[in-house]
């Protein structure tokens, strides 16, 4: 067996841990750097631990049948999370159905069609959208989008799932654009040149060659867009009308609705610490945590798998 330092001898610095060359004085710094690196793991564990600690007792205190019922009316002890879950899902699905064409279309335009000077204008604008605080979008939702939608679609109120979904679509779009643009940029230029040389038009090239080649990256973009939408709080809380009722059909999107995130944000301020209501709100937090965990793990799996496949096909 080889001594560790020998096996480390020929690796670049970022690939070896065993052979950090250091003076004794640097040892504490290097340890600190390492600890900082590992801190992210600690934080994820801490977050999960405290959510479980505060939220799991809900299963006992609010009892399961109430928890998985269809009525959310905490004052009377009804903690049914289905209406909130459906609220989140309906709004998110609608949002992502809007964000997919907007996001992928924009990324295709930026990476495949736009001349450089237009790119240089578009990218900062998308960045501005990514940086807009959700409370600002919620405010615009209340002031502008809701009245417009109410009159345009002749709805009883503009504060509805649809308004929330439209805002969410704009919140998710920058995520979709930037990740799918990255994916499109990693498609080798030779693919495009080959297609164009064979007489394909630009559209045929991007639709039949470039987009399929970037498939896994685009899929990742959509998934992370979903993650962004389902976790969004302030904008949806401000414009969806705050009605935690069980939706009865697809037209529920045109009515007031309430998502899981909005429920936590609007009710946590008023509950007593340790009460069943408090615990149930943390329980909803656990559900949201698991949602984002699943989406992110699957998304990173999809993107690394896609990467490996494209490496294989290139070599």
């Amino acid at each position: 067996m080889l001594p560790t330092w020998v096996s480390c001898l020929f690796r670049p610095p970022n690939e070896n841990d065993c052979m950090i060359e250091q003076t004794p004085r640097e040892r504490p710094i290097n340890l600190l750097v390492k600890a900082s690196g590992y801190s992210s793991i600690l934080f994820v564990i801490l977050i999960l631990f405290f959510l479980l600690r505060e939220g799991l007792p809900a299963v006992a205190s609010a009892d399961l049948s109430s928890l998985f019922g269809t009525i959310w009316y905490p004052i009377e002890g009804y903690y049914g999370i289905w209406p909130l879950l459906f609220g989140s899902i309906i709004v998110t699905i609608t949002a992502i159905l809007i964000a997919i064409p907007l996001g992928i279309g924009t990324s295709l335009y930026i990476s495949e069609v736009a001349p450089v000077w237009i790119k240089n204008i578009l990218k900062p604008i998308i960045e501005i959208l990514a940086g807009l605080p959700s409370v600002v979008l919620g405010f615009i939702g209340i002031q502008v989008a809701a009245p417009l939608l109410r009159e345009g679609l002749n709805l009883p109120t503009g504060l509805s799932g649809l308004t929330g979904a439209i805002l969410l679509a704009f919140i998710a779009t920058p995520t979709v654009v930037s990740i799918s643009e990255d994916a499109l940029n990693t498609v080798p230029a030779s693919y495009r040149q080959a297609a164009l040389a064979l007489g394909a038009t630009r559209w045929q090239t991007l639709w039949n060659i470039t987009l399929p080649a970037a498939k896994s990256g685009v899929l990742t973009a959509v998934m992370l867009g979903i993650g962004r939408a389902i976790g969004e709080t302030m904008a949806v809380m401000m414009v969806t009308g705050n009605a935690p009722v069980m939706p009865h059909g697809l037209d529920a999107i045109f009515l007031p609705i309430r998502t899981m995130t909005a429920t936590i944000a609007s009710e946590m301020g008023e509950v007593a610490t340790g009460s069943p209501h408090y615990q149930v709100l943390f329980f909803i937090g656990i559900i949201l945590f698991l949602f984002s965990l699943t989406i992110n793990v699957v998304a990173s799996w999809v993107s690394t798998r896609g990467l490996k496949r494209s490496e294989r096909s290139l070599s």
Partner: protein
Amino acid sequence: MEDGIKPNPILISSHRQETASLWLLRLITLMTVLPILAVVIYIMVKGAPSISWEFITAFPRNGMREGGIWPAIVGTLYLTLGTAVFSVPLGIAAGIYLAEYAPENRWTRLIRIAIINLAGIPSVVYGLFGLGVFVLFLKFGTSILASCLTLSIMTLPTIISTTEEALRQVPYSFRAVSRSLGATHWQTTWRIVLPQAMPGVLTGVILGLERAAGETAPILFTGVSFFLPQLPQSVFDATMALPYHIFVISTSVPGMSVQIQYGTVLVLLFFVLGMNLLASLVRVRARAKRQW
């Protein structure tokens, strides 16, 4: 027309498809971009009239319906700077670890998964976490400290990822040369790699803090209050903050003047877009000065 150069019907149809499709993409892009510009310009136009010296520097009066937003501005400054105190050193150190120290093994993969997950956790869940740990468990109470710590963890992934990326862009040859001249790992990182990566690191820091400045959900139950008669005196005091102030005056204050609302939104927008602009300036300047 001569024989053999008749227009080929297939080519014509694909030409039409080409034109139509490219216009469709342009249209979609406009649909994404125009509303953003419209919103920003609209807020500027509607908010500008309420911006005055008094609006910036005075306390709110008459249940927020009059006066200014000074304590909310100061609060957002405190929260942003406080967040920076924790997240900047930790985030940069973690980025350094991943780019310069970490071996490619399962522990490093685990760190990366953890960072991806931190980035994906909904902001309101961070709020719950902050409430559970900092406010209740560590007994900081509803305070600036609890809010800053919560926001720090939320901004970490942004700072870590951009730091790592910026460090990785520094050519490998600099490291080889530095080490061949007798530099230790840390000396190479500190004297050569980090200074070269600094603009990228700074961009990441600014973007992370920009997000912290605009967030509401994580501070909702950890450190904000909708009205305080005086500025916070210590890190254990609650504070007002611009995003929360906007939320309150746009949803819970009946008879609120719309003009003040737009004015407040404009001030927050100014904050956030200012940081965005700063990040772009850093990037552009660095690109012009770069030696490799």
